[in-house]
């Protein structure tokens, strides 16, 4: 192979520096806007046309960097604006806080690993897999019988030896959209709905691990009784929300984040995962291992998990009593509200964006439900008077983001009220905010799955408005 001559290399670097300068200039002029000096206008024009036909683009004339110039690939530098963001006034400290996925910039159903939303309760630990363990143990039933016969401790290698499974699921914080119960606060879909992400997760089924630890078959039976019952039905029978078959999941972070999980869910479809989108979990998502409870509240998917403990009572942890309980209008509060409800949002066009030209557009969005699959998504352009069923993009998977899309036409001077409304496989239909306020008041914080309205004004600007 011919080596790159030093002068060519130098030229590449110089061109690159110039390009970046032009880019900065270009951005600056866009930001400052207003009157541009004549010279600046021509420089901008040159920057925009120098690499367009009939000119030969700069990048066609020199060799680019070779393979492994970046050992771990990164997005193009022109995509630097696509990143997680947080809302500084939301929490007292970034260590116990949340960041949002930029949904308006994403395509398809998979969230890139670096853009998965984050929720830490005690910051993000850096854990050596050699020094991390998962412990599975259990208490006793009312008669003093052990709920499992072999308390075990697993290394990360142990866990990867078990039969593996990969599944695509969303994880959503129950506080998603929770800042807008009382009114509009956010000006991009990243901040109205970005507490959700969706990845392919790989790991071992929790049921496999519980079996390894010798879980009592009677306890399994007791747990599964609760699977198809509502919490109210169980309460009417004098039973708690898990029929007395619980499992504590606890993290190794500085919050030692813990939640009581109904055992039936762990037996049903939960996993201990060590990989996301084909690579090891990111530290932000729980490296080296996290719990995955598909369709349940994000914080129950305990990150940096170190322990599972079976028990006949819930642990009433701070994050299932003081937090993550849903305060209703009358002062009562719902507890153990695990399920992430059926929801959808239009991501393009969405609040903060602008349509520049008249003509045909493709409306795109995301729908999801913790109850299983999305059956249908309807779209309205006139604020809910008339609805059209949108096309669902395959694959449509259970407890997974589902893409929908619908073509529409817009011209300057036209005003539209864009809405999407999801229906899940059970036939449940996403509610309006008015319906949610009627049912719960405005203090619930969590589980707000209301239909959103983007007002597309006559100039093509999109606004977040509340209708219902």
């Amino acid at each position, binding site marked *: 192979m011919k080596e790159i001559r030093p002068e060519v290399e130098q030229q590449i670097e110089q061109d690159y520096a110039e390009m970046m300068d032009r880019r900065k200039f270009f951005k600056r002029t866009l930001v400052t806007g207003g009157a541009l000096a004549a010279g600046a206008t021509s420089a901008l024009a040159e920057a925009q046309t120098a690499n367009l036909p009939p000119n030969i683009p700069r990048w066609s004339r020199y060799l680019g960097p070779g393979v492994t110039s970046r050992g771990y690939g990164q997005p193009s530098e022109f995509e630097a604006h696509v990143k997680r963001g947080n809302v500084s006034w939301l929490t007292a400290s970034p260590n116990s806080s949340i960041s949002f996925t930029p949904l308006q910039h994403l395509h398809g159903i998979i969230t890139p690993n670096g853009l998965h939303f984050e929720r830490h309760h005690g910051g993000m630990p850096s854990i050596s897999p050699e020094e991390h363990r998962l412990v599975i143990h259990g208490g006793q039933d009312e008669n003093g019988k052990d709920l499992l016969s072999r*308390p075990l401790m697993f290394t990360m290698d142990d866990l990867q030896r078990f039969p593996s499974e990969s599944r695509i699921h969303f994880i959503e914080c129950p506080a998603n959209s929770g800042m807008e119960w009382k009114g509009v606060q956010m000006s991009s879909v990243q901040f109205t709905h970005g507490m959700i992400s969706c990845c392919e997760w790989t790991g071992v089924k929790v049921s496999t691990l519980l*079996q*390894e630890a010798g879980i009592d078959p009677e306890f*399994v039976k007791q747990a599964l009784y609760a699977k198809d019952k509502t919490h109210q039905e169980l309460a009417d029978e004098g039973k708690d929300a898990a029929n007395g078959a619980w499992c504590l999941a*606890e993290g190794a972070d500085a919050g030692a984040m813990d939640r009581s999980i109904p055992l039936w869910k762990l037996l049903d479809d939960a996993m201990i995962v060590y990989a996301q989108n084909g690579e090891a979990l990111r530290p932000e998502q729980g490296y080296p291992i996290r719990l995955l409870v598909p369709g349940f509240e994000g914080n129950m998917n305990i990150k940096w998990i170190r322990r599972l*403990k079976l028990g006949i009572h819930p642990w009433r942890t701070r994050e299932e009593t003081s937090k993550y309980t849903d305060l209703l209008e009358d002062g009562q*509060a719902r507890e153990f509200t695990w399920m992430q*409800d059926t929801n959808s949002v239009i991501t393009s066009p969405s609040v903060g964006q602008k349509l520049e030209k008249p003509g045909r557009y493709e409306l795109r969005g995301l729908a999801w439900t913790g109850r299983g699959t999305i059956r249908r998504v309807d779209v309205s352009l006139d604020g809910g008077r008339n609805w059209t069923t949108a096309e669902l993009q395959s694959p449509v998977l259970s407890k997974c983001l589902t893409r929908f899309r619908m073509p529409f036409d817009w011209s300057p001077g036209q005003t539209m009220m864009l809405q999407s409304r999801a229906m899940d496989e059970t036939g449940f239909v996403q509610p309006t905010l008015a319906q949610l306020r009627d049912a719960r008041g405005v203090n619930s914080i969590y589980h707000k799955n209301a239909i959103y309205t983007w007002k597309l004004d006559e100039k093509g600007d999109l606004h977040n408005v509340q209708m219902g």
Partner: protein
Amino acid sequence: MFRWVELLKKTLLVGALMGLSGVASAGDGLVFGYGTAISPGELAGWDISINQVGEELPEGVTTPEEGENLYLMRCAQCHGEFGEAVGRWPVLASPGAEETLATLEPIKTVGSYWPYATTLFSYIRRAMPFYEPQSLSAEETYAITAYVLHLNDLLEYDEELNREKLISMEMPNQGNFIPDNRPDTQNAACMSGCPEMKALPVIR
């Protein structure tokens, strides 16, 4: 050594109950034999969650008086001298907070909202102080727990708090938690000529 026959029976039964046909037919039917046994001694340091009947709660005897200085040194910088909170840090106590839960500005304090007193011990031990978690001894945790209960008028300044008392303490708001009764909305999914939606008022 495992008692293989009994184990096989158990494994198959569990597999059947779970509907895990894959496991039973994987050929290895039995457990995989991965992982190592963990002893009670090893578990002791990690078994720190306390269930609602207080099973895992250690013994202890203290009073709010004993916790006052600890609270002021380790907690007050964020939670305030009287639990009123500094900035956006969580409020621990606020006079009259129990009257606010059904208003537009609910104040969720330990006394007005938390359903179990044992949660306080468990949370302080695992996650507090925020900048130095798991640095408090069980005695210190008890003392601070007692002081926070005192700030909420749930314990006299010189009243004794012990394991039994913490477990049996009935928190004022405990009866106000109800089962998840969703779905609580019904949207008819009207397709055409639907009732007009109105702009919703901002609630202040």
